[in-house]
Structures are given as C-alpha cells and as structure tokens.
C-alpha cells in the first residue's frame, strides 16, 4: 500500500492556502503536518479524506482496492458523539458505518478506558472522554489510513500516551498515520511536512 499526493493546492474562500504540496507514504510510515494557524492543516486532511475537493493535484492509493475515503479514518475537531445515545450505541453506530466487526466493540471501549461508562449517555462525557470515544472508533473499525487533526486536543497525559501507543501499533500493522499537530505526538521516524504560512 502506498499513498501518494501530487501537487495538491487548496483555495478556501477565494484565498490560496497552499500550492503544490506533494508527499508519498508507504505502509507503516507516518507524516506530521505542521504549520501556523490558518495555514491549511485541517483543509489538507479534509482533502486527503475526500471531504474537500483540491483545487489542483491528485491523491492516489496504490495497492488497495478501496478509494482513499473508504480506507481512511478522519478524526477532526468534532467528535461526532451523539448526546442522546449511550457510549456503546455511539461506538456501535460508527463501527457499523465504517465497517468493523461486531466483536471489536468491547475491546475498543476498554482500551480507551470507557468500559465502565459504556451505558451512560453521551451528554455526561467530558471533552476528553468524548475524544477517547472518538479514538475507540479507530480501533473498532480497522482502516489502514488514519487522518488525525490535533488528536491530542483535550486528552490528559494518560490519553496522550494511549494515543501514542495506538499509533505505534497501527504503524506496526502496516497502517499509515497522518497527523496535523502543534505538539510532539511521539511518532517515531515520522516524516515532517511544514505548510508555509502563505503560498500566495
């Protein structure tokens, strides 16, 4: 499996964010995207996930039968947790939606430390717990590419270590991790991509 991005450009609201970004990642590799606020880190991740169309350039996933969107997890600023559903129901839905096996649920919940809260509704969760529930999605539905946007936001120290562990295991299984971040994530041998502040 090899993910290649060639000459990606992004225009948001008539303003060019970045131009001509290229990179290639093989299985097990990681990419840390850095850049100033508003440089286009989130837009780049959304383009990679297929949620946004690039102004120019293309993304190719070689060696997989799926499209990039179908092979990707996108962990954005919003955790996609429904307040009226219980923790388990929330995870169950995302697992079914993104194509995970039913048995993966409980293991994922205990891995992120939410097993004791599984029957509580989403609205009682703190911001950090909601983020942990979003992380459980990554475990419950196996997909080879993880697109993480500021994944450590609202996580405590233990949560950040958990994330580092999860990313390490994912890469050891041959997965690709692409993370936009301001903080060091503990990604070993990660490639770095810095988006310049203003391409125009």
């Amino acid at each position, binding site marked *: 499996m090899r993910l290649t991005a060639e000459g990606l450009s992004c225009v948001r609201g008539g303003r060019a964010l970045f131009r001509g970004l290229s990179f290639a990642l093989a299985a097990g590799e990681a990419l840390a995207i850095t850049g100033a606020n508003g440089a286009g880190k989130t837009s780049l991740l959304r383009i990679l*996930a297929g949620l946004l169309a690039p102004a120019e350039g293309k993304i190719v996933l070689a060696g997989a039968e799926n499209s990039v969107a*179908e092979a990707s997890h996108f962990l*954005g600023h919003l955790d996609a947790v429904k307040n009226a559903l219980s923790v388990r129901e929330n995870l169950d839905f995302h697992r079914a939606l993104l194509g995970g096996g039913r048995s993966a649920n409980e293991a994922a919940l205990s891995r992120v430390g939410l097993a004791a809260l599984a029957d509580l509704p989403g609205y009682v969760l703190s911001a950090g717990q909601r983020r942990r529930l979003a992380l459980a999605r990554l475990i419950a539905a196996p997909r080879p590419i993880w697109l993480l946007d500021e994944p450590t936001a609202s996580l405590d120290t233990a949560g950040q270590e958990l994330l580092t562990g999860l990313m390490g295991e994912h890469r050891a299984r041959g997965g690709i991790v692409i993370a936009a971040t301001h903080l060091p994530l503990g990604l070993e041998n990660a490639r770095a991509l810095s988006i310049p502040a203003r391409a125009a």
Partner: protein
Amino acid sequence: MSALSAIVMRDVKLALRAGGGAGVGVIFFLALVTLVPFAVGPDMPLLTRIGPAMLWIGALLASLLGLDRIFAADHEDGSLDQLMLSSAPLETIAAAKGLAHWLASGLPLVIVTPVLGLMLGIEPKALLAVSLTLLAGTPGLTFLGLVAAALAAAMPRGGLFSAVLVLPLSIPLLIFGVVSTNAAIAGEGFGAPFRFLCAISLFFLVLGPAAAAMALRHVRD
C-alpha cells in the same frame, strides 16, 4: 448494507429519545386539526366537507417540522464527515436518513389521522381514503424535504428556508391527495387520482436522495 440499517436505526432512536422531536409533529397536527372547528364553527356538514382537506394540510405542515435538522444536526457535531467516509454511496445514505425521518415523523401522522378524522366528523369510508392517501403521500413529502434539508445543512436557522422551499413543490401531492379522497367520498373513481398521487410520491422518492446528495456535496465544499 449494514451501514445503511445502522443509519436508519440510529436516526429513529435519536428521534424517539428526549429532544429528538418525533412527537412534536403529531402534537402540532392534533393542535391544528383541533383549531379548525373553533375557526369555522360547529357546522357538521361543512366540517365533513372540508375535513379531508384540513387533514391533508395539517399533515403537510406537520411534516415540515424537524425537516431542517435531518442533516444540520449531523453537520454540527461532525457525524456528517463520518457518514461521508462510509463506503455506502451518499445517495443511499441520504435515502436511509429520509426513511428514518419518515418512520419517526411521517408514519405517526398517518397513524393518528383516523382519530383526528373522527373529531372532524368524517365518515369511516372517507377516513380510510384519507389515511391511505397520506400513507402514499407522506413518503414523497419527506423525500422532497430531504433536498431542502441538505441545502439547509450548513445554515444556522434553516427551518423556515426548508419550509419555503418545500411548500410550493408539495402542491401536486396535496392536489392529488385531496382529489382522490373526495372521489372516494363521492363514490367516483378513486383509482385514477390515487395512482397519480403514488406516481408523484415515487418521483420524489427517487429524485430526493440523488438531489440531496448533490446538494450536500456542494454545500459542504
């Protein structure tokens, strides 16, 4: 396939739980139909005559409630991004959400129609006809509303917008719904206008999800 059934199950669950708004439509329908006798006076023949039309207008307006939240709620909490990453096509995802909305808000309207009809003094045969036409017409209304819901997904207050968009386009459903009911009451041919109603409803059932998916892709770009 399991992704789609998960969407339907989740949306029905969300609608039926506290704050989901599934009951609001039925209560609004009840309130509207209760108001009619107060407005036109206790004139039984008149009520009997305009009753089916009142039920249709009531159901039409009640089905507009909550329409704007179909995609907006998912857009606000990030769920829409996750829906788009599913391997199911966006068109079928939109159809699944439309089906869930109809099950939670459209079907209850059809179920309470006979009860409300009794309040308007509508005779049993006409009640059956109204219920049947609403059963055929409300899915079309919901899937027509799906397009407006998709356009209103990123709007802060899209409720009025979707109502304004849906109402003019719903006129054919209203016309054939009421005409076929009146034909049944008069003992004339119920079949022909009812088939037109079904055809228009089916047209929206097919067009709605495709147009909604197209709208979602544009609105979110």
